[in-house]
């Protein structure tokens, strides 16, 4: 199921990014007309779906090797640590939903977006219930969009 999902995601993103010739010209700008904002908005959902479904394969596919994430509380995690957390089915399930996705910056090889992510559930002793302001960074590396990192802050003030 995860394999099929991963393949589906691959196809979806390739279609969305019009990236048939990815990787052949890594230093060239993306083909004109590429909908960068649309592509990374899809990847934003792919990312959260992977986290929700304990789908480490898709997360590993999405995350760049030098990926870094700063969790609420200031905990820094690497790609390996984040993928391990996502893959760990012993941890509880989280209901994760993003809204208010705003692409703050988009170029042929970089995109930065923010969203409001709502999480319901516990993992281990940690209760994640709440809303979070999230900044996600994507970079096109060797012709493929990868998640470079994320910073997540819990919303504790009225907006």
């Amino acid at each position, binding site marked *: 199921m995860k394999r099929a999902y991963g393949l589906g995601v691959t196809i979806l993103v390739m279609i969305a990014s019009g990236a048939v010739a990815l990787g052949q010209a890594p230093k060239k700008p993306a083909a004109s007309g590429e909908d960068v904002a649309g592509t990374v908005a899809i990847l934003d959902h792919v990312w959260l779906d992977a986290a929700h479904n304990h789908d480490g394969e898709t997360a590993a596919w999405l995350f760049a090797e030098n990926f*870094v994430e700063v969790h609420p*509380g200031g905990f820094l995690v690497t790609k390996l640590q984040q993928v391990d957390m996502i893959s760990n089915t012993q941890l509880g399930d989280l209901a994760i939903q993003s809204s208010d996705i705003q692409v703050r*910056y988009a170029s042929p090889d970089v995109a930065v977006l923010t969203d409001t992510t709502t999480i319901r559930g516990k993992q281990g002793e940690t209760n994640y219930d709440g*809303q979070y*302001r999230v900044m996600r960074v994507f970079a096109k590396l060797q012709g493929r969009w990868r998640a*470079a990192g994320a910073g997540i802050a819990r919303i504790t003030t009225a907006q």
Partner: protein
Amino acid sequence: MRLIHVGVLALVLSCAPPAFSQTKSALAPAAAEDWKALDHKWLDSERTGDLDYLEKFFADSYVLVLANGQSYTKKEWLGILRGPDRPTLQTLDPENIQVHVFGNVAILTDHTTIKGHDSKGKSLDGVFNVFRVVIKKNGTWLATGVVMNPDLTKK
């Protein structure tokens, strides 16, 4: 069905280079970029109120997310720093600066100590683990995002 999967896999493999080469690229330092100096200059300018520098250094896309989740655009944040409600900062010191470069975007993480107060005298003292994003535009690195978190890792 199996044939379709094999075909898709072949396509993906032909399009996506090995992860090893991607790793090398992502880890390759940007030539001669002094990231620590960039981070210190950034925070020194916020501390001293060097708004001319910040106006140039912040990309139009800049967004600041404070530790309570409150977010500000470039215009909003510079407006605060220019206005009567600007905070007074005695210390704004980043340490343990780590850099992750991905071509034309870099993510800096640091441990920032803040000492100061807001316009009403409320203390802003704290230690934060900060996620910073800078983008390269026309050969110049510009700040485009910040997410702050209180450092609870040692509690």
